[in-house]
């Protein structure tokens, strides 16, 4: 099966950003290594993984779907907002698409900064905002045989 992948990468003297939507497994170690920089004393990696139980219902697997072009644009805007609020150097975000098994990574966010408070704040902001505005949808396949597109208020 062909694995599709959509990417955006930008880099200048103030730092770099990397956005990736992919049907392949997320390599969070490679992502974390890619934000390392001698000018930074801190980096934070957030990993969102497929959890087994949500509100007492058992999940067997998930499927993610995205409006690729717009999702990359929206994530790009969020990274720009994060850069305005915090002194961060490199930001890398990978969101997995397609079918995911229990325990697999749906999203990885890596941020590096000279001081640690900026990496923590920016990584948390990016994850919170991605869940609000980026056109990506999650379909849950449950152990009771039901399948549902998840709405934020159902989480």
């Amino acid at each position, binding site marked *: 099966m062909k694995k599709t992948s959509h990417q955006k990468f930008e880099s200048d003297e103030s730092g770099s950003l990397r956005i990736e939507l992919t049907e392949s497994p997320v390599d969070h170690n490679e992502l974390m290594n890619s934000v390392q920089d001698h000018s930074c004393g801190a980096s934070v990696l957030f990993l*969102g993984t497929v959890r087994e139980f949500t509100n007492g219902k058992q999940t067997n697997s998930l499927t*993610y*779907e*995205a*409006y690729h*072009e*717009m*999702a990359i*644009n929206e994530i790009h805007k969020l990274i720009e907002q994060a850069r305005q609020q915090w002194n961060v150097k490199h930001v890398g975000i990978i*969101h997995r698409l397609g079918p995911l098994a229990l325990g697999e990574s*749906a*999203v990885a966010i890596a941020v590096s900064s000279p001081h640690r408070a900026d990496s923590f704040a920016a990584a948390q902001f990016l*994850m919170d905002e*991605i*869940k*609000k*505005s*980026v*056109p*990506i*949808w*999650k*379909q849950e396949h449950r152990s009771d045989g039901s399948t549902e*597109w*998840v*709405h*934020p*208020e159902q*989480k």
Partner: protein
Amino acid sequence: MNNTSTITIRLFATLREIVGQDQLTFLWHDGLTIAELKQTLLQTYPELEPQFKAIMMARNCSYCKEAQVLQPDDEIAFIPPVSGG
């Protein structure tokens, strides 16, 4: 501009499943708004009505209001509540 100008509608998740297609092409006319597109879609696919209550709209990959007036070749998306991450 000529009479064959069109706009494209992108559909995702529940909407894609209800309509049975991930893309629709509509004829464009001067002054066409997203609100008008919504009405037209609802006439053809009344099952969309509950989905449209919490719907967001995007024009050429940016969120917009339904009063937005469209141009030929615009790409419009109806965006159900997102659930990434």
